[in-house]
């Protein structure tokens, strides 16, 4: 895999919801800063200046009632405006944002996607992300992957966010605000990246021991490239011809791997772990914990509990050295 060049998470991608939010944050922080300085200055003045009864009432009414009322009124309107803008950008109507705020039944409310909007299910799990692409160009087959999301540049993609265990929060700081993933509920987020690039996301709701090691990558790429990628992800794999890779394939089935993992096109249909059909193409292993190459793959298979203690993947304890190497090579070859 080539070198990853990630923009800072503090840098909001242009034209994204994150940019509006970052602007809002800036205004609020600067405003608060100015008010703080003025209040401190007044406090110092009150402490050190000669007492004079003149204008006391004006100060109390002006500074204590009129100013806060006015400021808060303006700010509220401003934030609501930004909120509407973000919501409009992300999901079409400001009303939906309000509905979200009041927790109105999301399952029923989610309409079919507007034509041209792609739907992707992202399911938070301890401690990784399952990503399911619903529609591949009219075809109903699904492409399932993990810890990685690809978007066509400049197009809105509708994410349906949920979880199968505890509360997680989907957050790609450069692209959008946080949206919680709540058991029994599906939340929605429209994600749009206006520039091609690779962005890092992170679970933003404490979800257990390895919460910190629950990251994901979002890749935005030109439409054509994206489609090639998606078609590839939807494909199944076949038994390898190469003897060494075949040894790896057999090692996979010698172990308990298929109990939890699916590799489409093989008898492995386990559901509780990430789909490994194209694991070799991913940027990372173990939800953003490790770079993905044959060495980290072997290390992760043999020592998953050392790397991410408590995660659902056990240390493999049955492979010989050569089997482990072959297994890592086979998985790495699934691109």
């Amino acid at each position, binding site marked *: 895999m080539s070198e990853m060049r990630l923009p800072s998470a503090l840098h909001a991608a242009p034209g994204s919801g994150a940019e509006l939010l970052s602007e809002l944050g800036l205004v609020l922080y600067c405003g608060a800063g100015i008010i703080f300085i003025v209040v401190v200055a007044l406090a110092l003045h009150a402490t050190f200046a000669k007492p004079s009864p003149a204008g006391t009432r004006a100060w109390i009414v002006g500074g204590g009632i009129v100013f806060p009322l006015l400021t808060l009124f303006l700010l509220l309107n401003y934030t609501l405006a930004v909120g509407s803008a973000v919501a409009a950008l992300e999901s079409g109507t400001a009303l939906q944002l309000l509905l979200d705020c009041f927790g109105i039944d999301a399952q029923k409310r989610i309409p079919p996607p507007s034509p041209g909007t792609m739907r992707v299910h992202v399911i938070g799990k301890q401690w990784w992300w399952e990503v399911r692409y619903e529609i591949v160009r009219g075809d109903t087959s699904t492409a399932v992957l993990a810890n990685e999301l690809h978007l066509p540049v400049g197009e809105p993609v509708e994410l349906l966010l949920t979880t199968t265990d505890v509360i997680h929060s989907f957050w790609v700081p450069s692209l959008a605000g946080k949206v919680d993933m709540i058991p029994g509920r599906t939340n929605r987020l429209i994600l749009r990246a206006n520039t091609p690039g690779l962005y890092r996301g992170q679970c933003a709701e404490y979800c257990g021991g390895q919460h910190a090691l629950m990251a994901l990558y979002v890749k935005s790429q030109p439409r054509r490239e994206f489609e090639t990628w998606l078609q590839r992800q939807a494909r199944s794999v076949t038994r390898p011809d190469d003897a060494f890779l075949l040894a790896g394939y057999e090692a996979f089935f010698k172990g308990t791997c298929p109990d939890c993992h699916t590799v489409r096109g093989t008898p492995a249909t386990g559901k509780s772990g990430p789909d490994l059909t194209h694991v070799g193409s991913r940027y990372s292993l173990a939800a953003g914990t490790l770079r993905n190459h044959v060495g980290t793959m072997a290390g992760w298979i*043999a*020592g998953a509990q*050392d790397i991410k203690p408590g995660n659902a993947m056990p*240390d*493999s*304890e*049955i*492979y*010989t*050295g*050569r089997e482990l190497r072959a297994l890592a090579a086979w998985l790495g070859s699934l691109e």
Partner: protein
Amino acid sequence: MPQLVHKPKRKALLIAAGALGLVAFGALSGAIILLSGAYSTAATTQHFKVTHQVLDAGLRLSVRASARHVRAPDLDRPGMLARGVACFRTHCVQCHGAPGVAPIPAARGMLPIASNLTQTAREWPPEWLYYVTRKGVRMTGMPAWEMRIDEDDLWATVSFLTRLPVLTREQYRRLATRAEDLTCRTPTGVPFEGSREYAKVIFRQYACHSCHRIEGVVGPRAHIGPSLLEWSRRKFVAGVLPNDERNLIRFIRDPERVKPGSLMPRLEVTEAHAREMARYLLDEGAR
């Protein structure tokens, strides 16, 4: 009468100061000799006579104290002598010699020199001989034999030793020839099975610590084989097999078979000993 009270007090103080001074002087001179490298560790430099006498007496007293609970069995049972000879010619004669037989050249250059057992056997009771043979003697070339000679044959060896002083050159030669077909038996079981303390003895008795670092075993900081510290957390044996008891035993007993070309030699480790070693290494977490 204040002086009378004062005087003994001053005397006691003087004695204490003198003693302290002596101790300080001793420690200082010891440190100087050690740090300057003046003490010779060469095997060609002999001990002072007094040093030798003190060490010899110390050995005798220590063996006497340690062997006081040892009870010798009947040493004249049939067949015992022959097996004793077999063990002696396999393991002992190389360093100790025998009537009319010199120790091998390497053994002649040792300091301390291996004792001539014809004299030791005259002066020491069988229990002492047994104890020293079984446990060895620290800081001499005498190894412990309890891992290599089984209990019966240890006593058989002692039985032979008690007869050593009265053998002529010709008699010894004949006994040794007759015992040529007999082998000295190695122990099959382990005393103190499952004891972590005894497992450390086993490691040391197979010289594991000359190449590996092992939890709880004092030795050189060896970097020849991999460190075995925190072994239970390791995933592979020799980088090749999954790290479990069965594979560990397999590798310890026959490294070449598990990993062709491995520089770890075959140490003739018994199954029982290998199991104790494997359990010790894998059970570190249970400490």
